[in-house]
């Protein structure tokens, strides 16, 4: 009984003391609230947009890989390209043909692509498209897996040039369809220009960046190529420091950088047809800075006296205000160079616009290996590169 009374006394006391209790407004709270809201909004927008971009890319990729129509188109394109390549090959002079046959080995497997085989059967060495000549076909040593193999015809080849039957096999190198397609433009170094807007994100804030420049894609082997170039980047990196007062704005460091970026990436083209190509690229970037402008803003709270007249009497009250102080540091150009300072990752889509013009769409992520620039900044860059190559 006594406990119950004590409990209600304590409860009443607590209730009574807290009744009408109200803290004062703390200067700078609204500004801090607005800043927080903006950062949150920016982060959400970026997350949504990158999510949408990634979903679209994955969607297109899945659609292309699973759609039988696209698959058939791809096969047709390859066959057409192979068919086109064959007459060119056979219309060459004998010595040219002999050169072409160098380094080839005989194929002993059964035919897997009939249309190509048929077109081959209709040709003889002079380039006439007559049927019924006997051939043994050969395949390049470069591509043993993707071979186009043809059942040998037991009949002997008649050589119209010499007027007698040829007993030696005819050498032919159509084997890898990819190589046939690549015979033209794929093997060339492709140059391009690009522009990429993006976002630099530190642990506490994010800001916009943009860059642009020239690129070069150098084929190295099969579906692999080196991608390099020279990019001019304009970056702003914002980082909020620890808050001294919980109500005031946090200290802020802002860096405005202008630098050259020399990327060296290895690109793997994992899906391609006549019009489209998807690729993954990874590598490193070296950075040279020709403008580094650092601004550090710190906030402190000070008491400021405010006098007012009430009923003819001067009343002095004190307000807490946030006082900002900013220091600036400009670094001389090309003082800092980050060799292989950043890792690059990108997923790309290449779309053919005309026979020699390609549009690239490349969402990317750049991660620092260590602190970058003079003040060892750590930030992740992400965005989308739009590129035209030719």
């Amino acid at each position: 009984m006594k406990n119950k009374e004590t409990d209600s006394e304590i409860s009443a006391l607590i209730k009574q003391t807290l009744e009408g209790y109200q803290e004062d407004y703390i200067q700078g709270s609204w500004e801090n609230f607005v800043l927080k809201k903006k950062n949150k909004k920016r982060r959400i927008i970026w997350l949504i947009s990158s999510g949408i971009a990634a979903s679209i890319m994955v969607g297109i990729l899945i659609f292309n890989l699973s759609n039988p129509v696209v698959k058939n188109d791809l096969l047709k394109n390859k066959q057409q390209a192979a068919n086109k390549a064959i007459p060119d090959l056979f219309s060459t002079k004998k010595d040219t043909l002999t050169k072409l046959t160098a380094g080839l080995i005989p194929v002993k497997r059964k035919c897997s692509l009939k249309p190509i085989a048929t077109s081959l059967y209709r040709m003889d060495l002079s380039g006439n498209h007559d049927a019924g000549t006997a051939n043994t076909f050969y395949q390049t040593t470069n591509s043993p897996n993707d071979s186009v193999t043809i059942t040998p015809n037991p009949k002997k080849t008649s050589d119209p040039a010499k007027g007698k039957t040829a007993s030696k096999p005819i050498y032919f190198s159509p084997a890898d369809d990819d190589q046939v397609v690549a015979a033209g433009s794929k093997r060339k170094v492709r140059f391009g220009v690009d522009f990429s807007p993006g976002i630099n994100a530190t642990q506490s804030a994010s800001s916009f960046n943009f860059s642009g420049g020239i690129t070069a894609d150098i084929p190295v082997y099969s579906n692999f190529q080196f991608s390099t170039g020279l990019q001019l980047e304009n970056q702003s990196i914002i980082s909020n420091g620890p808050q001294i007062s919980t109500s005031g704005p946090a200290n802020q460091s802002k860096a405005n950088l202008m630098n050259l970026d020399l990327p060296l990436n290895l690109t793997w083209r994992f899906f391609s047809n006549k019009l489209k190509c998807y690729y993954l690229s990874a590598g490193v970037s070296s950075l040279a800075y020709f403008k580094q402008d650092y601004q550090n803003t710190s906030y402190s709270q000070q008491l400021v006296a405010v006098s007012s007249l009430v009923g003819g009497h001067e009343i002095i009250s004190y307000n807490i205000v946030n006082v900002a102080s900013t220091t600036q540091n400009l670094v001389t150009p090309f003082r800092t160079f980050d060799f292989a300072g950043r890792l690059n990752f990108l997923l790309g889509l290449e779309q053919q616009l005309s026979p020699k013009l390609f549009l690239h769409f490349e969402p990317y992520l750049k991660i620092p290996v260590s602190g970058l620039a003079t003040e060892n900044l750590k930030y992740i860059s992400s965005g989308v590169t739009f590129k035209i190559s030719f």
Partner: protein
Amino acid sequence: MAGTKLDDLDDVIRGCLQKVEKSQEMLYKKFFGYALSVALIYTNQRNDAFEVVDDSFVKVFAEIEKYDPSQPFLGWLRKIVINTSIDYFRRNQKRNLMVDAETQHIHDHSPNAISNLTARDIIDLLNHLPNDHKKVFCLYEIDGFSHEEIARELEISESSSRVYLTRAKKQLRELFPVYFKTNHEE
């Protein structure tokens, strides 16, 4: 005068409905202190209270059209701050458990005598209770929630709510003399 103030608030709310930033700023500045005082009761640390206040105002501005002008604005705001505090507590439950363990033994405040108690003394005293007990006590004793409502808000059973309240009261009974002993002796 009171009528003028009410009109002012109506204007401010109307502005907030139209997403006018100046009106939002006025509303924020006007009710910041009140929201902070409520948040301080329901959170253990001042930093957390600031977070709760900001999150609450985000909700207020986003859902201001749901506010019924025939009801007092302070009541609506209080409910939002309480709900936000509970959500915040739930989100940071792991961290709160660690802070609880650390703060149980910290006694860095010299409270006033009982006759002279301030709100801050009471808040400090309440912070000595385990989080669940404190929340149930505040919701029941200060904000007049029923056990059914508390159970719904905190996602616990009604019987748990009753048990927590009894334990909170018992702890306060024990804490009160210990906590204010120093001042009585002075």
